């Protein structure tokens, strides 16, 4: 009642301000009149009565103010007044305001958009309503130190039987395959799921129906994702009920899952395109993820009954495991939802990126604080006048804080625009492809990012406003007014130290950022194929027959036809096939040894050792299978022997090519060609095959192919389910891409070719991610440094203007312009070094930490560590010079006259 009455009456006062004011005047006037009338009644003269009434009532203006302040609407009014006066005062210095807005909106915007990006990759999990009750089952075998989320059908049945804890057990497993729908073939990633999958997750259908337990019987239904449906079939409304082909099998589309559901793999940058019942797997050849597991081993989740805690579920699962002599556990479902190769680096990269954006924000704040301090200092006469005109120190403080608040809040709004812009730019960037699928980065800021921007703005306001406000309050009006206009109001030594420290902080942080960015980009480049790839490059295309369910004899014929087609393509002078992907993946790790060695003599291979001849570095090789003519087509050279040819056919004696390094390892000092090499699985090397070495590959030659294996086997003798076509010609590799693509398509129109392009383009996924990360850090670093440069410029311009008289006297006494420049630049460069030197050391420390945790950075890379700081300090020196120029060139007569 009281609250409501307050609100209603306050609002009325706000809306009908003049009426309320008039009534207040009238009421006070009537009180005065009454008091006077009272005086007259006791016989006082009108004059005395008036005086007495005034004394009695006190200062009516003060009373009016007090009454106004009694309601909450007064504060609305006060804030509005503060905002207006702050905006007016900011408009008077448009340059300052523009720089401040720019600095802060980019500082906050970078944070909002990076948060959104990380959020999109890592945090924005599928909005699964039932996730809290979902656990993943995990199994660890201590002797192998392995942890797996895969459970067999039999194991799942045991878990289902423990009804007191779980009410549903659900399966979902990744599956990648060529999916043809609406006349288009594309590589799609999806999930093999149990019939209760959508029920357990509580996902409603967008169209048609989702999978049900009955779908497991036939295993012929498929659910498409809304994203896939829109992207590939152009939102064809007739898709439900239509037939599509997945990895050679015809399935019926029963429904579409909504866009909000990305499947159960958490980095939503790789959302699921389709869902098929697990039973369909029997008829599909699954290629990735499940191939290493027994066919019915699947990633298994269980839903806890309402009221069951994770601890209870875990205990129950452990007990089941113990009874079976295994170590089982129930863990939060999210644990099983991250791709293993992504989980660790992904987390580190996101922490790193967030830390970096925080650093940019810090730079922006330091810069703005500096600008504000300089501004407050140069406003001393204005503040002095305000103080003498009756403003209290609190009023002055409030004005400064209001200015900061107006700036930061405006920046927060602008920052949001910056974040949108960033998301739009990111959406246009070419995204890396993995196994022929696009990876999605979504940085569209959401409400949380918006909230974050405002939180940052608030923090910025608190951080930035405090010091300048205190400084403003310290202003002594008498001193200021007596010296107003004389230019003698100089910054105190304390202020100058604050400036220097703030600039040093900015410079130091941006040196760290730029250094780390340079290191990351250099590191990413070092993972890329040969940097001189422009000289020896080749056109490539990859085909994976397994995805088309094509088996060995037919596969060999297809490889033959593809090779012929590639060789016949216009402009191609040499072509070959290799099982290695263009970016060097898909190498097989094998045991190898000279064939005459006694395996039993190797301690690792003793029968007592259960793992077989495991992991003895000397016997580990990486193997690729390649077609005849591979050496010529790949640009490699042989130091001994010959290339593979038609004679290395299926029935012929087994042959091999080895690198010089392998030759030296197994036949030190001797002739490798003609020797016999045993290549086989680690578990049982004696089951392997023996190959005659026919050639040694010269390791010193330039090849565009990255990460080459150490042993090559002929394709005809060692079948591989996927191959890369490599084609070279006298002309530029880029010009060969289209002819190669056309020739391959004409030869095999039903096959899907992925990673079509040149080797230089086809860089590894990891290095692309690193490159993207490095570029992001680089952009941040550049942004931070640009802000820092503005800061250096501003502070130098300000401090030099403070030294105007000193410099003018020096010049009048005969100092040359050059000497004065030296003086000014010297102090500027000292300020820069003050930040840059610690920055280098911090960057070194961070780089060493990164090297231990994420990737092989080269922390002592001398070029980066010299070039970057020197470049940055030079840029800072230029900013110093620009800031000092006007004051140094001033005529001493003019300067001294104005003192």
């Amino acid at each position, binding site marked *: *009642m*009281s609250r409501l*009455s*307050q609100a209603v*009456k*306050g609002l009325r006062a706000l809306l009908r301000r003049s009426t309320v004011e008039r*009534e*207040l005047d*009238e*009421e*006070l006037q*009537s*009180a005065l*009149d*009454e*008091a006077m*009338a*009272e005086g007259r009644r006791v016989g006082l003269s009108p004059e005395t009565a008036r005086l007495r009434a005034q004394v*009695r*009532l*006190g*200062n*009516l203006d*003060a*009373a009016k103010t*007090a*009454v106004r*302040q*009694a*309601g909450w609407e007064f504060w609305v009014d006060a804030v509005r007044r503060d905002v207006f006066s702050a905006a007016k005062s900011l408009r008077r210095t448009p340059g300052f305001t523009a720089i401040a807005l720019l600095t802060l909106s980019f500082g906050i915007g970078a944070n909002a958009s990076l948060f959104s990006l990380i959020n999109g990759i890592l945090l924005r999990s599928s909005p699964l309503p039932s996730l809290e009750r979902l656990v993943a089952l995990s199994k660890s075998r201590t002797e192998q130190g392995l942890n797996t989320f895969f459970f067999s059908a039999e194991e799942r049945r045991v878990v289902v039987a423990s009804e007191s804890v779980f009410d549903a057990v659900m399966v979902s497993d990744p599956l990648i395959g060529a999916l043809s729908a609406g006349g288009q073939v594309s590589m799609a990633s999806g999930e093999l799921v149990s019939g209760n999958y959508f029920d357990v997750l509580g996902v409603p259908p967008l169209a048609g129906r989702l999978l049900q337990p009955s779908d497991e019987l036939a295993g012929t239904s498929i659910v498409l994702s809304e994203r896939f449906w829109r992207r590939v079939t152009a939102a064809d409304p007739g898709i439900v009920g239509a037939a599509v082909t997945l990895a050679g099998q015809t399935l019926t589309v029963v429904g579409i899952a909504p866009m909000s559901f990305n499947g159960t793999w958490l980095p939503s940058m790789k959302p699921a395109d389709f869902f098929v019942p697990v039973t369909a797997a029997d008829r599909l050849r699954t290629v990735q993820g499940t191939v290493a597991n027994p066919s019915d081993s699947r990633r298994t989740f269980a839903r806890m009954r309402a009221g069951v805690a994770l601890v209870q579920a875990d205990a129950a699962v452990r007990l089941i495991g113990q009874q079976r002599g295994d170590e089982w556990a129930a863990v939060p479902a999210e644990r099983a939802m991250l791709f293993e190769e992504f989980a660790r680096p992904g987390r580190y990269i996101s922490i790193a990126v967030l830390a970096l954006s925080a650093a940019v924000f810090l730079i922006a704040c330091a810069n703005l604080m500096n600008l504000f301090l300089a501004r407050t200092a140069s406003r001393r006469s204005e503040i002095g006048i305000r103080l003498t005109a009756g403003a209290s120190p609190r009023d002055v403080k409030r004005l400064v804080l209001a200015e900061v608040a107006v700036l930061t809040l405006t920046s927060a709004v602008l920052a949001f625009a910056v974040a949108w812009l960033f998301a739009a730019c990111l959406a246009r960037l070419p995204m890396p492809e993995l196994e022929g699928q696009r990876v999605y980065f979504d940085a569209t800021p959401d409400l949380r990012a918006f909230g974050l921007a405002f939180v940052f703005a608030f923090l910025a306001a608190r951080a930035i406003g405090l010091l300048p406000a205190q400084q403003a309050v310290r202003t002594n009006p008498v001193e200021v007014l007596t010296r107003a206009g004389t230019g003698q109001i100089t910054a105190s030594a304390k202020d100058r130290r604050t400036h220097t420290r703030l600039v040093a902080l900015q410079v130091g942080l941006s040196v760290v950022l730029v250094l780390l960015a340079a290191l990351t980009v250099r590191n990413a480049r070092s993972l890329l194929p040969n940097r001189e790839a422009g000289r020896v490059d080749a056109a490539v295309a990859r085909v994976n027959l397994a995805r088309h369910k094509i088996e060995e004899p037919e596969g060999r014929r297809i490889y033959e036809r593809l090779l012929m087609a590639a060789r016949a393509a216009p402009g191609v002078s040499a072509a070959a096939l290799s099982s290695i992907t263009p970016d060097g993946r898909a190498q097989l790790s094998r045991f190898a040894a000279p064939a005459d060695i006694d395996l039993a003599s190797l301690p690792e291979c003793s029968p007592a050792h259960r793992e077989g001849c495991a992991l003895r570095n000397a016997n580990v090789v990486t193997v690729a299978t390649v077609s005849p003519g591979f050496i010529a087509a790949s640009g490699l050279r042989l130091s001994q022997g010959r290339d593979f040819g038609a004679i290395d056919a299926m029935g012929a004696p087994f042959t091999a090519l080895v690198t010089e390094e392998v030759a030296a390892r197994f036949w030190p000092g001797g002739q490798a060609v003609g020797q016999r090499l045993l290549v086989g699985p680690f578990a049982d090397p004696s089951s392997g095959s023996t190959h005659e070495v026919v050639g040694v590959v010269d390791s010193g030659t330039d090849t565009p192919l990255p990460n080459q294996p150490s042993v090559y086997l002929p394709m005809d003798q060692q079948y591989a389910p996927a191959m890369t076509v490599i084609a070279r010609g006298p002309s530029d590799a880029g010009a060969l891409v289209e002819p190669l693509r056309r020739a391959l398509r004409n030869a095999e129109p039903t096959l899907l070719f992925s990673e079509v392009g040149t080797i230089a383009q086809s860089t590894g996924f990891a290095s692309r991610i690193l490159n993207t990360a490095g570029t992001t850090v680089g952009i941040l670093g550049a942004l931070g440094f640009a802000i820092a440069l503005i800061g250096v410029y501003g502070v130098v311009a300000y401090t030099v203007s403070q030294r105007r008289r000193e410099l003018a006297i020096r010049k009048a006494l005969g100092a040359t312009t050059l000497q004065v420049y030296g003086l000014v630049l010297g102090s500027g460069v000292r300020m820069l070094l003050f930040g840059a030197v610690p920055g280098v050391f911090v960057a070194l420390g961070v780089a060493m930490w990164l090297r231990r945790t994420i990737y092989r950075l080269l922390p002592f890379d001398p070029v980066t560590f010299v070039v970057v700081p020197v470049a940055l300090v030079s840029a800072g020196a230029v900013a110093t010079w620009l800031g000092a120029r006007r004051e140094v060139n001033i005529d001493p007569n003019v300067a001294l006259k104005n003192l």
Partner: protein
Amino acid sequence: MDSKSGALVQGTLEMLVLKTLALEPLHGYGIGLRLEQMSGGVFSVNAGSLFPALRRLERDGLIEGEWRATENNRRGRWYSLTPAGRRRLKTATADWTHQSAAIARILRAGRGTS
């Protein structure tokens, strides 16, 4: 009343205003006058304290203002208690009696020991 006396006095003033209005509606000056009379001249309330208190009480819905003619035939704002104000006066009086008795006991005890 002096504004330096703080929150206690401010709350007290509001209670006293409610008390003056419990008998009959009054206008602002009348309230001040009545307070002075009732306190035997101990309290003289200036406009800077009285009118903000009136505004606060009105905002809280404890009193109601109405424009009417004064005894001197001028237009003035007359305040009267609302039912909520009447209830508040009751509780405030009870609280005050209770507290002042307690304070008095403490002060007496203090005098005894010193």
